[in-house]
Each structure stands twice: as structure tokens, then as C-alpha cells.
């Protein structure tokens, strides 16, 4: 690749955590004025790579140079001083402080040694404008902003430092479709201004739109660097998972008999202003999908079904009987038989420092106890079965679950719930941030569970999953069910159209 001198070059960078090699002699070259996409499964080393560049962790070995000069980052402040700005997936905003305070958190403008609030506000407004987020008031406390707005503040914060290299780690995962367009347009503008951009994402269509160069990481190494568009989708995935890539989704059974009594039925379910008059049916053996843009009520619907919300109006029926579910503890009971695989496995699904075994048995513990005393042998047996049934890769059951990879952690969450023998399984975006291999295993598992008689309600932000796994999809918009798609009706066009609250014909017109 001739042309501009590399802005950033990493050579032979390695980093190990305990016995695990997160980065293995990794190389990377990023040029100014180009968008460089970085792909790879979770566990491939991408997040460690970013942390090294951001100065959050120190590499064990290797060289990093900026414009030919070797550099080292002993702290995040040093990396920032070198002109690197990172937009993290977990966000680095301070909830209790205002937007302006967050944007100028480091080296704010000062007057007489104290923060110059007026000037800070001006600078914050300029940064927000550059990021295309002028609807955000600089004095708003960040904790009062929804996730998509926070992501925009994070972007403004990175831009306020006038970086030379901007790194975005899954920066669009929480954004609305409109915001994504604006961000991609912004990135193109910045690229044309001469900035170097590193873009880490799982979203292939975004990468197709924006990337100039691509690098694939696997097992902590750079396995391929190529110009965008010069490799097919299948080739890319194969490089990412290192093995041949075949069918993703298991076969679906023939469409159900509509008159069969539904295992789960909702009529007119409403909650504050987030859920409006939702009706839904899920029969035994069915996988019902929830679609739509992020934040349209899908999470709240699943929480409502699981008993975590109060103030619900409307009816929930299980096997035809009206029920009221007051808590997850009630939902878990045999007579209701529900399970919820939550959104964030690290804070909602697992107790990270506790062992794999303890996490697995936690929800079903009562079944292996008499009067509160645990039958350790029965428990151990059940744990062993769950590990082998789900093929969870763990050396010892007693290891903390935090030491597992993301995909295996999610398997532990699923395994925990399967131990309770649920008849209704709710899943909140279960494959987010999980490697392709484990995803396939989860799809196959869901179909097997449905075939064995469970009713499954499955929210996903991935259209391909909804198309490939679900028998029916309900698309939510603003807390209401906008459209129900059945069988062959589930297409990407239909999903996108209903998600944006347009009708299909209009979308088809736009596309042509």
C-alpha cells in the first residue's frame, strides 16, 4: 500500500492475562485519511488491542510507533496526549456530571485556576455540533440521557480533543438508525479531513459502507489485511472463525396450526408509556421473535413477562389461565415455568467471581435441596450434565465464571435456566457480542428446545437471526406491536420497514 505514511504502526505486540494470550505478536498499520475496519470474534483480541492503544493496559512486548516515532502509553492521559481518542463500547462517561463536564473532563478551560464554565459550555456545544448531536443540552446530567444519546456525547467528547486517530469500538451498537447514518456521514467527513479512523464492529453492512481497509484478528493475531470489498462475506467469516462456514440456522418446522391453545398469551398489556396495548401469542414448539429498533419496548416487555415490572395493566395468560407475576421468583415457579436470559450477562446473568458450577446451579438450587440444605452430590451431577449438554468449555467446574470466554459465559447463563426445566423461555438479545461458532450452537439449541415443547420469545437486534430462527416475528415501535410477520413474510425489507414504522411498499420504492 503506497501513499501516506502510516499514522500508527503496531509490531509484535503481545499481552497475556494470567495464562491467556489475549494478543499474540499482533501487527497493525493504520494510515491517515482512511477508515480501517477491524473484525474478529469475541476473544480474538480486539478489545485488548484497543485497551493497549488507549493506554489502559500496558503490553508485555512489542513496538508501537506514531508517524515513525516509537511511543509508549503509561496511562490513558498519555495516549490522549499523543492524539489518540477512543470511543469505548462500555462508554467512559460520568453519570452524575453534566454533558459539558463530561466532554471537557480532561483539561477543561480555566480562569484563575478554576473551571471557566462559560467557555467550557461553548466548547461543548461546538463538539456536539461537530458530532451532529445539537439536540443535547450541555447542562443535562448524563445519567438522564438514554443510551443512544450517551453514545453521541461519547463521540463529541472524543472529537473535542481534536485527535489524529479516532478508534470506535462497537460505537453504533446503541444508536438508532438515524443516528447511525449521521455517524457514518461524520466519519466520512473526518476521513476526508485527514483523520485516521479505526472502526471495530460486527455489523457487516456498516463496514461495507464505510471501510477503506480491513484487518481480521483471530486468537490475538492479525490473520488478514485487505482492501475493503476484496473479500466475500463467507471468506471473511471463515477467516474470523478459522474453519469452514456452512449453514447458520437449523431448519424450521412447518407453520403451526393457529388454533392450538397458546402456552403464553398477552392481551392488551400496557406499562407506563413504554408498553402500549401489546398482544402476543406463543405456542409450545414456537419461536416467536421480537424485532424493531433498539429501545422500542422489547426489553421492558420481557421484564414485564418475568415479573420485574409493577403497575402492569392488561392480561397475561399461561395455558389459558390468567396469571399475575409478581417477581422473577414467581415466574420461575413450576406452575409458570418461565426463564429469562437477560440482556447483560456480566451484570444480570452471572455472579462473575463465583464458580462456573455455582452459577450453573443457582436458579434450580431448590430442586437439589431438602428444606434448604443442598444435596451436593445431586448438584454436582446436574452441573456435569449441563456442561456436557451445552458443551461449555471449562477446565474445572470450580473456576470463576469470569475466566470463561463471552460465548461460554452465555452458555452458563442458558445452562443455569435449562436446569429449571422451563416451558417458556424468554431471551433478550442472547447472541450480542458472541463469536460466530457459539451463535450457531445457540440457534440449534433453541430449535431443539422448541421441538421438545417449549415456547420461546426471542428479542434480537440482528435481522439475520430473526429471519433464520423465528417462526413468527412481532415488530415493535414505540411500545406497540406494529406488524406481525409469519413464516415467509419475515424478510429483511419487511423487518426494516416495520421497524421504521413505514409500510413495505414505501421501503421498496426507496431502495430502487
Amino acid at each position: 500500500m503506497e501513499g501516506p505514511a502510516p499514522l500508527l504502526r503496531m509490531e509484535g505486540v503481545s499481552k497475556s492475562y494470567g495464562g491467556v494470550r489475549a494478543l499474540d505478536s499482533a501487527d497493525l498499520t493504520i494510515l491517515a485519511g482512511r477508515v480501517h475496519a477491524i473484525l474478529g470474534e469475541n476473544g480474538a483480541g480486539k478489545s485488548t488491542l484497543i485497551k493497549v492503544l488507549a493506554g489502559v493496559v500496558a503490553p508485555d512486548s512489542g513496538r508501537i510507533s506514531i508517524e515513525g516515532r516509537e511511543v509508549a502509553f503509561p496511562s490513558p492521559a498519555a495516549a490522549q496526549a499523543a492524539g489518540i481518542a477512543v470511543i469505548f463500547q462500555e462508554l467512559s462517561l460520568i453519570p452524575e456530571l453534566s454533558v459539558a463536564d463530561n466532554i471537557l473532563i480532561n483539561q477543561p478551560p480555566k480562569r484563575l485556576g478554576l473551571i471557566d464554565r462559560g467557555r467550557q459550555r461553548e466548547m461543548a456545544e461546538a463538539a456536539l455540533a461537530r458530532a451532529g448531536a445539537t439536540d443535547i443540552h450541555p447542562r443535562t446530567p448524563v445519567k438522564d440521557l438514554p443510551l443512544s444519546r450517551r453514545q453521541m456525547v461519547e463521540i463529541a467528547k472524543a472529537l473535542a480533543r481534536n485527535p489524529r486517530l479516532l478508534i470506535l469500538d462497537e460505537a453504533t451498537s446503541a444508536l438508532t438508525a438515524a443516528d447511525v447514518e449521521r455517524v457514518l456521514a461524520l466519519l466520512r467527513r473526518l476521513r476526508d479531513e485527514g483523520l485516521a479512523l479505526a472502526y471495530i464492529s460486527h455489523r457487516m453492512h456498516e463496514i461495507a459502507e464505510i471501510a477503506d481497509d480491513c484487518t481480521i484478528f483471530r486468537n490475538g493475531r492479525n490473520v488478514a489485511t485487505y482492501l475493503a470489498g476484496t473479500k466475500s462475506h463467507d471468506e471473511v467469516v471463515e477467516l474470523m472463525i478459522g474453519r469452514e462456514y456452512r449453514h447458520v440456522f437449523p431448519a424450521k418446522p412447518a407453520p403451526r396450526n393457529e388454533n392450538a391453545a397458546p402456552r403464553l398469551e398477552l392481551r392488551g398489556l400496557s406499562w407506563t408509556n413504554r408498553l402500549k396495548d401489546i398482544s402476543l401469542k406463543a405456542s409450545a414448539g414456537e419461536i416467536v421473535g421480537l424485532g424493531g429498533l433498539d429501545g422500542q419496548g422489547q426489553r421492558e416487555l420481557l421484564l414485564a413477562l418475568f415479573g420485574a415490572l409493577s403497575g402492569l395493566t392488561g392480561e397475561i395468560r399461561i395455558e389459558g389461565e390468567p396469571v399475575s407475576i409478581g417477581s422473577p421468583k414467581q415466574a420461575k415457579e413450576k406452575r409458570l415455568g418461565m426463564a429469562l436470559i437477560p440482556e447483560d450477562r456480566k451484570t444480570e446473568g452471572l455472579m462473575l467471581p463465583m464458580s462456573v458450577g455455582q452459577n450453573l446451579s443457582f436458579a434450580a438450587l431448590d430442586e437439589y435441596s431438602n428444606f434448604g440444605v443442598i444435596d451436593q452430590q445431586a448438584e454436582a451431577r446436574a452441573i456435569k450434565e449441563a456442561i456436557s449438554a451445552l458443551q461449555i468449555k471449562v477446565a474445572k467446574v470450580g473456576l470463576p465464571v469470569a475466566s470463561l470466554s463471552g460465548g461460554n459465559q452465555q452458555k452458563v447463563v442458558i445452562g443455569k435456566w435449562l436446569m429449571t426445566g422451563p416451558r417458556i423461555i424468554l431471551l433478550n438479545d442472547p447472541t450480542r457480542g458472541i463469536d460466530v461458532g457459539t451463535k450457531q450452537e445457540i440457534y440449534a439449541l433453541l430449535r431443539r428446545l422448541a421441538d421438545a415443547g417449549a415456547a420461546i420469545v426471542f428479542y434480537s437486534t440482528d435481522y439475520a437471526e430473526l429471519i433464520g430462527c423465528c417462526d413468527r416475528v412481532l415488530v415493535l415501535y414505540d411500545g406497540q406491536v406494529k406488524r406481525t410477520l409469519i413464516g415467509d413474510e419475515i424478510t429483511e425489507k419487511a423487518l426494516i420497514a416495520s421497524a421504521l414504522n413505514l409500510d413495505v411498499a414505501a421501503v421498496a420504492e426507496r431502495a430502487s
Partner: protein
Amino acid sequence: MTDSGIPMREGMWARTRARIDPATLAAFGCILVLLFAGSLYSQSFLSPAYLLQQLKVASFLGIIATGMMIVILLGQIDLSVPWAIAVGGMMSASASAWGPAGPWIAIPFGIACGLAIGFVNGVGVAYLRIPSMIVTLAVNAVAQGLMVVHTGGFSPQDSASPAMRFIATGDVFFGLPNALIVWAIIGIGATLLLNRTTFGRAVYAIGNRERATYLSGVDPQRVTLIAFMISGGLSAFAGVLLAGYASKAAQAMGDPYLLPAIAAVVLGGASILGGRGNYLGTVAGVILVTLLQSILSVMQIPEAGRQIAYGLVIIVMLLFYGRGAAIRG
């Protein structure tokens, strides 16, 4: 790949060894160091009589620390211990004077008062979601106020019942102090509770991640309430025994036990943030704290020096194994 750990045949010893916290070992090591240092000062430090006396004194602290440990494992703290102890001591002594049935109900009544205090704490923390530090502080103040009214501001005059005195000061089995046996029973109960029951598993889970516990279909609020009741009940029971030991209760009799109880739990390797710790460590911590206080007083070091030494030892021990993770990995 999916081997379930150390095979059953190797048995309990191997599994126990794998589970012993380095912090607990460190605590026991320090106990040995203290004994050694003390023996340099005077031979009688290693005499069975002295050691048994220490264990007896430690028993009171041990019972209190048991309750404190369970609350700390949850990620909370119980600052109402001083007056829960006093309430236990005073109310049981008073009850023993209530007619012919008095001596029979004295001890259960004292414990019941402690359970009530724990109940109020538990409701405040679990259901009203007020930080435990402040709720237990306020409850401590209320308990103090109640006792001031009850005693009319004077020293309590009621005597402890014979049963109280017997448990606290007698020695029935082979010269082992009754108080020590009581602590042992409570300790074994606590260990079984934490390691073998769903309640215990829930305690660790809540201390690690309350949200995930709730979403796993376990009721964290009830567990928290029960834990605070256990702590209140055990503190009051210790107060009953202390009253038995001195034959009567005294104003502010519980004050000297709060900080040592917290120190004992933490020195035993439990994390103050919750979710980590085992009972054996707490036992080590209790003995360590008791020995330290005793050695300092026997060496006739003035109170000023004792306080300084006490603080220094805690800091040094914690610097060795009580440190948090560094942010930069």
C-alpha cells in the same frame, strides 16, 4: 476439558486444601507469630490456662463476629452492634427478675430483642433501600435511647439469671469453658449455613451481584432481612452472655466490640465489599484480635500505645492481603 475438578476419591482433604484462602492462612500465621512474640516476653503465654482464657474471652467477640460476617458477606455493614449487645444484656437481666418464670425467659427474651433490632435494620436496608451504614447507625441511636429510658439513665441494677452466669462462666466438659462450646456450636452452624444451604449460597450471590441474584429467581430482600436478624440476634445473645459474665449489664457495654468485630471479619480474609470470605478466616481473625488486645494489656503498654499498636497491626495485615485490584492491568 470438562473434568469436574478434583476427583471424589482424593477426598475431602484435597478439596479443603484447595479451598483454603491464603488470607486465612496468613491470619493463622500471624496468630503463631503473636504467640511466639508473647512467649519471648513471658513463658506463661503458651500455658494451656492462658490460652484457654483467651479462647473464652474470644468467644464473646466470636459470636458477634459471626453475625457481622454474614452481613458483610452480603456487602452490607451492621453498626447497630454496640447497642444490640447492650439491649440483649439489659433486657435479659431485667427479664430474669420478672416473677417466677423470669429466669426461664431471660435468655430467649434477650435474643428476641436482638431479632427485633435486626428486623428493623433488615427492613430499612432490604425494603427501603437505605444504605446499611446509615440505617444501622440510626437504629443504634434508637436502641440507645430506649435503654436510657428503660434504665432511667442509671446503671442497670438487675442481676443476670443463674443460667446466664452458668453459660458465660462455667465449664462443664473437660474444663472447656461453656462460652467456648457455645461459640463452637454457633460457628459450626454458621459454616453449615453458609456452605451447605440455599440461604448461604444466596448470601454469597447477593454479595457478588444482587441484580443477577434477583433475575435468577431468588428473593434478595428476604435473604438480607434474615441476615440482619441473625446479626441482631447473635449480638444480643453475646450481650446476654456478657451480662452473665459480669453478673449484670452495664451502660455502653457493647461499645468496645464494634470495631474489633469488623476488624476480625476483615482480617480473616472477607472482603468488605461482600461476596468473599469463609468462616474459618473469621475464627482466625477473632483469635488474632483477642490475642493482640490481651498481649498489649499484659505487657502493660499504656492505653495510648495499645491503640496505636492495634491500628498498626490491622493496617500491616491488610497491606499484605487485603488490597484491592489495581485499575491498570
